């Protein structure tokens, strides 16, 4: 399967979406906090987060959801995400490598819609965030 898709006809049931490595660096999370919000110490300061009982600074959940959206748009640049539901199962930690994998679980060629399951895992391959998206693609 190619790295990107253009129309719904390009999408196969069960296909894996190219893996995406999100930028979970402290610098990027601070940038998110500065411009978007969620700039509190638990997100931007490892020591402050540890004092709150966390293993380290946390990537905001809304940023993790944004990673999932970005992964879909990288794979299908002309797509529209019409729905996305995200479950925050465990913290995504700042400065720790994570990977996002996705798989196509349904294809409706007539409606031009595909369903995708997406998972963010850490280096130990533990699921941190799980999402399901409905994506509309040109029927071309």
């Amino acid at each position: 399967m190619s790295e990107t898709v253009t129309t719904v006809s390009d999408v196969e049931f069960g296909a894996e979406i190219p893996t995406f490595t999100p930028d979970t660096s402290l610098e990027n999370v601070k940038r998110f906090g500065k411009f978007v919000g969620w700039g509190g110490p638990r997100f931007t300061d490892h020591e402050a987060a540890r004092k709150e009982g966390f293993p380290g600074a946390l990537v905001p959940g809304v940023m993790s959801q944004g990673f999932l959206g970005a992964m879909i748009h990288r794979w299908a640049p002309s797509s529209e995400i019409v729905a996305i539901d995200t479950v925050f199962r465990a913290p995504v930690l700042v400065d720790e490598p994570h990977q996002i994998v996705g798989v196509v679980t349904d294809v409706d060629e007539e409606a031009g819609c595909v369903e995708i399951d997406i998972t963010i895992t850490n280096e130990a391959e533990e699921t941190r965030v799980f999402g399901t998206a409905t994506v509309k693609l040109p029927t071309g």
Partner: protein
Amino acid sequence: METDIEELRSGFLNEEFDEVTFEIDGERFAEYALSCGEQAPRFTDPAHADFQAPPTFVSTLVGGRSLPVDFPRLGGVGMDAGKGVEWMAPIRAGATLTGKSHLHDIYTKTGRSGRMIFLVTRMELFDEEGVHVANADTRTVMRERPSE
């Protein structure tokens, strides 16, 4: 004593409890897009003809209240368990959106550590013409306080 979920549902579901206005800043959503790893110019480049907010951006819009003013205290500290977005139309830089919030669902799950209560707050977003452009759901979970 366990919280009566059916009573909560009949008393609070689908009753609007908050209304706020958002001025949509294109620089803010472009920065959101870039920091999340978006590459499509329609989300990152203000000069693009189809410049618009990524659909998930609406999850960053926060209302004035997350629960009705008379909603009972359920005990434990609420944790953000998830976000959901339904996208209906593009949100452009400079738009003024009205967000109206209601409790969309209340349900429980029981595990080894006891019962957890989930509250789903939905913010419906409308543009200046009253067009419904998106829904942004926040799922909060709290562990029920043990019976005394």
